[in-house]
């Protein structure tokens, strides 16, 4: 296929959490790199998989500040697996995540985990684009 599609990235977070200044900044950085960024807030994590399929994205970038990390990530990976998308879509997660939780996330198939104080948003952009 000689398709020349732009990388499509779904950047998303829970709609209950208002901590999103840096998430929105990230969307701008990704756009400036030439990617097509779909930014959503989900009320239920299941929406993310539906959105990812409809928008045919290459990457899902999920941000957590305070709440729902364990349940939402486990459910996301489970649904991606169910849809046969686990190997097709890169999953990048950032937020207040501990080292122990990072290991757990990697174990369930998350591709990249960004913890507080580790790297910058520019590093995230690089990993998303990789």
């Amino acid at each position, binding site marked *: 296929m000689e*398709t020349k*599609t732009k990388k499509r990235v779904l950047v998303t977070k829970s709609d209950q959490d208002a901590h999103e200044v840096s998430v929105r900044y990230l969307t701008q950085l990704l756009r400036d*790199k030439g990617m*097509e960024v779909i*930014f959503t*807030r989900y009320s*239920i994590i299941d*929406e993310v998989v539906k959105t990812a*399929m*409809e928008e045919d994205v290459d990457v899902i970038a999920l941000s957590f500040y305070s709440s729902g990390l364990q349940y939402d990530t486990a459910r996301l990976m489970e649904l991606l697996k169910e849809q046969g998308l686990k190997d097709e879509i890169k999953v990048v997660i950032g937020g207040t995540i501990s080292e122990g939780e990072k290991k757990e996330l990697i174990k369930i198939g998350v591709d990249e985990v960004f913890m507080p104080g580790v790297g910058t948003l520019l590093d995230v952009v690089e990993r998303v684009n990789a």
Partner: protein
Amino acid sequence: MKAKQSIEDLVKELLGGSVRAAGRLITLVEANDSLVPDIMKLIYPHSGNAYVIGFTGAPGAGKSTLVGKLAKLLDSKGKKVAIIAIDPSSPFTGGALLGDRIRMMEDVGIKQNVFIRSLGSRGEMGGLSEATYRVANVLDAFGKEFIFVETVGTGQAEIEVTKLADSVIVVLSPGMGDEIQTLKAGTMEIGDIFVLNKADQAGAESISASIQTALHWAAKHGERMPTLVKTVAIKEQGIEDLWKELELHRAYLIESGQLKIRREKRIRMEVCKLMEDKLARHFNKFTCESPDFEQGIKEVSTDNKNPCQQAEILLETFMSFLKQGDSEK
């Protein structure tokens, strides 16, 4: 990495109701992939059933919310709805922030069957409407009965998109300051239904009166006069009225034969575009690969030949190149 799948398989999955296949095929047809003719060949027999509604209007009028609420209403009536949301791309990087989806998601979350797809306008004039047309075809084949196309509604490219719609809805809101300019700037001619959203705000009465006046001279030649519906989308007020008005317009289009005329126009546009694309592809090939072309250019620069004459001669060569190419195929 996305798995490579044959288009036959993808289309089979699409017809079987796979959201994932629909998403993937849209990416292919939107990008004007070389597979487009093959994809369209497979899809075309399954399309032609959907009714396409275009939404346009200045930013801030509440289009996305309105679209979301209408989709929610139709979904609750058991209709199958898809939304194509078009956002501008950055002219510099080509990247885009496709943000309209977020406003619709509030209403059209996981519970509904509404399919939403965001498209970047790629910052170019034209081309967008053809891509949107193909995307609509995929969604049509996917079994969607109503396809909403929402544009940012500021540029010519966006207005172009409405040409592929059966009904065009122009969304206005009070207090946008330049409402009268909006009415004069060409939007009045394209609308079949005008929606005054945020109709509970100050100034709604006066703008409503000026729209009513403007509607008299906004009627398209030989068509019925456009109508005005007042809504407060955020409070879900007037959405049912808008739906009734849409049904009336649809009935009118069918009875008057206008629907057929509009769709013919749309087909004309698509066919012309396909021809143009094919021609362009051959032309590119000719200019890049043909030794005759290279020779011709050289003659202009070294032998001081007249470029106009030379162009005529090369065009003749191109025509035979074209025939040759076709017969080879």
